[in-house]
């Protein structure tokens, strides 16, 4: 057991803190700090600044730009990034398709895709879910039929985050419809969204934003060398990838930033001299959220320290469940702090900037309901824990 950071680690942290606060301009951090809607330019510019400093893909293999960091160093990196309100490197690139190509791709695929993926010269999106294959992903029906040197893809993906901004999509497609089990006969395919036959239709959400899309494939011809790894083995790559996703989806750093803002609002003096924390119920809810978040962060540190070779641990389901719970809890708390002000949303242009947190709060609360649904719904996580951890 060891509590204190070594002097080396303390210096490491200080270096990162300085980098994030001085090398990433405030114009790129301000929208993150104040919960503005996503902006493609912010994502891309921030990512490229981090990439130039070797800070975009630290958990990749060394040969492809990774850093030989301990789990604790990775944690400090993520924590300092969120603390400074830096938009993290684009996760479909760095956390999802990149690691899959690095682990299972051919040498040729690695050379072709990993550098532009790390640099965000390709903006990736993930094409997994389908209208009838959400939590039950193995029910997917999009097909890819081999035809000479190409696959011909037909079908529909949905809930595809940021597809309207993306250059490429990585998909799970059914390449062997006759496989005895539904999980077999699925392949992992990389597709240029500029290929003819692809239509991207944004889905408007209840908070008015359009982060996700439907993607339609109509006889889309994809070169066969864009199939990653072994044909029909895509399910195992997807499982590898979803394990990674669940760790990211705990979003501890982001929640910490939101909770710090909650405290700022709650402690601010009102014009009549009062503070929102004068209400003991609100004060206690904040204190409890803070205690829960600390316990979650410690759990993430324990999981990180115990992880081996990127194999997802069952503990990642714990992080997903509690991480999304706290994201939602803090969003709800922010809305409740705003009170009737949460209803006074104003027009979209009135909802920007630090002063408009009350106007944004209900929309952010609504938006945040998604996190317990995507990336493996919380019901799926409970089943995983019951089965894989408790043996039920």
């Amino acid at each position, binding site marked *: 057991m060891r509590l204190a950071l070594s002097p080396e680690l303390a210096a490491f942290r200080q270096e990162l803190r300085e980098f994030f606060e001085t090398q990433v301009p405030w114009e790129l951090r301000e929208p993150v700090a104040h919960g503005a809607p996503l902006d493609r330019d912010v994502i891309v510019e921030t990512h490229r600044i981090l990439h130039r400093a070797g800070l975009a893909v630290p958990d990749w293999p060394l040969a492809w730009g990774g850093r030989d960091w301990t789990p604790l160093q990775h944690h400090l990196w993520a924590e300092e990034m969120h603390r400074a309100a830096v938009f993290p490197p684009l996760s479909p690139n760095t956390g999802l398709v990149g690691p899959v190509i690095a682990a299972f791709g051919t040498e040729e695929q690695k050379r072709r895709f990993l550098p532009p993926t790390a640099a965000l010269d390709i903006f990736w999106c993930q094409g997994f879910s389908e209208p*009838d294959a959400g939590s039950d992903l193995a029910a997917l029906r999009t097909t890819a039929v081999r035809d000479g040197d190409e696959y011909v893809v037909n079908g529909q993906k949905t809930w595809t985050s940021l597809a309207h901004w993306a250059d490429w999509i990585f998909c799970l497609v059914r390449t062997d419809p006759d496989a005895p089990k539904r999980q077999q006969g699925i392949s992992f395919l990389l597709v240029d969204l500029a290929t003819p036959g692809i239509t991207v239709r944004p889905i408007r959400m209840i908070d008015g934003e359009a982060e996700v899309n439907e993607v339609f494939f109509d006889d889309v011809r994809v070169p066969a060398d864009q199939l990653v790894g072994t044909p029909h083995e895509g399910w195992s790559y997807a499982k590898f990838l979803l394990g990674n996703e669940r760790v990211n989806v705990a979003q501890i750093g982001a929640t910490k930033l939101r909770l710090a803002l909650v405290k700022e609002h709650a402690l601010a003096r009102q014009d009549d001299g009062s503070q929102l924390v004068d209400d003991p119920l609100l004060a206690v809810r904040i204190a409890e959220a803070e205690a829960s978040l600390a316990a979650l962060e410690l759990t993430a540190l324990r999981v990180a320290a115990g992880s081996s070779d990127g194999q997802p641990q069952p503990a990642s389901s714990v992080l997903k469940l509690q991480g999304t719970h706290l994201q939602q809890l803090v969003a709800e708390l922010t809305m409740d702090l705003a009170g*009737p002000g949460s209803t006074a949303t104003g027009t979209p242009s009135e909802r920007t900037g630090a002063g408009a947190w009350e106007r944004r709060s209900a929309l952010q609360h609504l938006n945040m309901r998604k996190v317990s649904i995507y990336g493996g719904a919380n019901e799926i996580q409970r089943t995983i824990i019951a089965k894989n951890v408790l043996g039920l």
Partner: protein
Amino acid sequence: MDLTLTPEQDDLERAVTRMLATAPDAWAGLAEMGLLGLGVPEADGGAGGTFADVFVVARALGRAGARTPYVEGVVGGSLLPGPADRLVVLAHDEPGRRWHPGAGVRAEPEPTGGTWRLTGTKEPVLHGAAADLLVVSATGPEGLGLFVVDPADAAIHSYLSHDRSPTARIDLDRTPATLLAAPPHADELLTAASVRAVTAYGAEALGAMEDALERTVAYLRTRHQFGVPLASFQALTHRAADAYVALELARSAVLYATACLAEDVVDPAVASRLKVQTGRAGRLIGQEAIQLHGGIGMTDEHAIGYVTARLEVIEHLWGDTGFHLHRLAAGLGDHGAVELLR
């Protein structure tokens, strides 16, 4: 005690529901049916009837997800009774403040006789832009008063809130006003209005929760995953059962508060208990509805998200669950066990 509706009220409910399913404009439909001004005595130009009739209409609106100034009109009409086709809206909440009985808008008496000038900002004012007259709370030299303002004299900025309700910010800058109620009478009026508002919104929330639970149950029955209907997953059906329990308890609280008002018993504790029940139930049912619908519950195309949003709007009007819990806690010593039967 009897918390059931009369056959006439059942008929009314069916008629309103039918109209809402077909009429292009719910508000015009209500007007046509003569349902505006319910609860305002006929002698004052209203449509008469008891608060039980208001309950019926508000609940039907909640079930249908209609966004009309109906509840706002009931509250306004109770403050300033008048013809049924005149919409009076109360402007009370102010930016940057959690709901509280005071108000930051300042009222200054005009040197010339009984008129006043008001300065300040009111927001959110639901359906503020549709009002024929505004009742505005403001602090004058002697305390909180209620004033009548012609909306034409105020700067009204209107938008759709997150539940798609037309909502407004009303800027007052030495806006002429007439006094409706001076302190301390204004406080009493406001308290009575709050009990009516909480009860009518409670009826609407009840309708919205019924709608949310019905849609969710239907989705569990029809949506298949892993080759079977969602309804075959016990973890989901047990959560739906818990939602149903919460709904029935909320229904009881709303029916009781309605019965009180129908017999002119205006009791803030009854309203607070209603608020606590519907607040807890609304959050549970609204959030479970989205979660059990999965991704499509988050989309603009599907109604369920707006039901959840509407429940949150109602939660934050006239004091949220926390506010009413504190108020009930402060009154714990006023009584032994709660006596429901009067």
